[in-house]
């Protein structure tokens, strides 16, 4: 086998042409997914069955099935349904980019909502009681007491999910999108050099992961400034 080290380096600029798309998918679905997760988490902790039950079913379905299957159903399946083709959803779903964002958003939303719920549940009950005894409304207690502490508790698990989402964006290459993974597959089909190209791709993903970990470590340190050893 001929292993061409120079190809590892020389393919990187070409792969980076997909970086923009990877970042767009990652950032948009990350933000929409977080908003969805907040809504789902609030539904789960609302104490009202008609809110918590649908959220639980939703989370069960989206955590319980492979994201690739979800992506295929959205991309190949939904356009078969006539009223979807006629509705405003079509604006999003007729483009593979929209399908990719939607699938990633729906999936990460399910995971992150459970991470946030864990953070909220981890805040000692006595702190809420202290707030209540001071006359703070439920809303004030949630915003000023529960949220900052829950965020701190959720950071490590949440950073995991953000990194995982970044890697999941590679799946959109299966629905014709040319993100970095998609470009890699094109180059491989032209050069017949899968090792070199995919090793280059790994290096790029590892660099992004490293930067993300650093950013979250800084965020965690800032949110922990009240914890003095």
């Amino acid at each position, binding site marked *: 086998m001929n292993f061409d080290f120079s190809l590892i380096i020389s393919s990187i600029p070409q792969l980076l042409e997909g970086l923009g798309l990877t970042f767009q998918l990652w950032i948009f679905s990350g933000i929409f997914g977080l908003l969805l997760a907040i809504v789902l988490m609030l539904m789960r902790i609302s104490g009202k069955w008609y809110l918590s039950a649908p959220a639980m079913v939703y989370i069960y379905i989206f955590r319980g099935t492979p994201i690739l299957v979800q992506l295929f159903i959205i991309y190949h399946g939904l356009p078969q349904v006539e009223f979807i083709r006629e509705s405003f959803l079509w604006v999003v779903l007729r483009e593979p980019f929209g399908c990719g964002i939607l699938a990633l958003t729906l999936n990460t939303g399910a995971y992150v909502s459970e991470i946030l719920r864990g953070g909220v549940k981890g805040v000692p009950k*006595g702190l809420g009681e*202290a707030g*209540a*005894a*001071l*006359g*703070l409304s439920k809303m004030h207690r949630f915003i000023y007491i529960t949220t900052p502490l829950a965020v701190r508790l959720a950071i490590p698990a949440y950073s995991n999910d953000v990194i995982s989402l970044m890697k999941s964006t590679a799946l959109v290459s299966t629905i014709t999108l040319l993100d970095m993974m998609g470009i890699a597959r094109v180059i491989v089909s032209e050069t017949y050099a899968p090792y070199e190209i995919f090793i280059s791709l790994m290096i790029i993903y590892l660099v992004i992961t490293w930067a993300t970990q650093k950013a979250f470590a800084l965020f965690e340190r800032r949110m922990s*400034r*009240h914890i003095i050893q």
Partner: protein
Amino acid sequence: MSLANTAPKTVISLQDVDKYFGEFHALRKINLTVAKGERIVICGPSGSGKSTLIRCINRLEEHNSGKIIVDGHELTDQVKDIDAVRREVGMVFQNFNLFPHLTIVENLMLAPRLVRKTAKAEARKHAMTLLERVRIPEQADKYPSQLSGGQQQRVAIARALCMNPAIMLFDEPTSALDPEMINEVLEVMTDLAKEGMTMICVTHEMGFARSVADTVVFMDAGEIVERNTPEEFFKNPQEERTQKFLKQILSH
């Protein structure tokens, strides 16, 4: 001046209050009135309902039947009444429950800023006055985790005072403290009592009960077994259960 005019006003009144936790009957037909300026110490074995009783007064627990009236507001499901009562009643917890992500002075400023919409500078000034009162103004900009247990509990007392409550509830304020820190907290509480604060205090500190309380209430199995002045209570307990309890806690 006639005596009738100086008769103390009732600020808290509990009438036939019952409370269940599932099957467990935590409070049984509790009747208790507290006059303005009165200092009540509640004692009794663990699980006797002392904490539940004071937690009902600011509705951290909901009673199941009977009436609780605090400063003219009856406690019902009405959020407006609950908020009105909570503004009048300060509470100090066994585990301090300071907000760990806020500095000491921010712990004191949070409620006045949000509930009373006090301006920041004014809230801080008031907070500093209270920290001086509990003798730790120098800790104002530290976080709770940097303070000792006794200091944290004094901050918690100051925080409860920042809303200018007419009544203070203490739920075993010294039980989580190392022995050498108990006195600094009791001193602050004694100061408060001297200033005429209405206080209900669940505690096992019998020295504090003797020197500060007007009334000692003994609870067992969800009932008020006996209430009396501290002198009579310690010297001449009427009920067998009270005698047994006092023997247990005073024999050491």
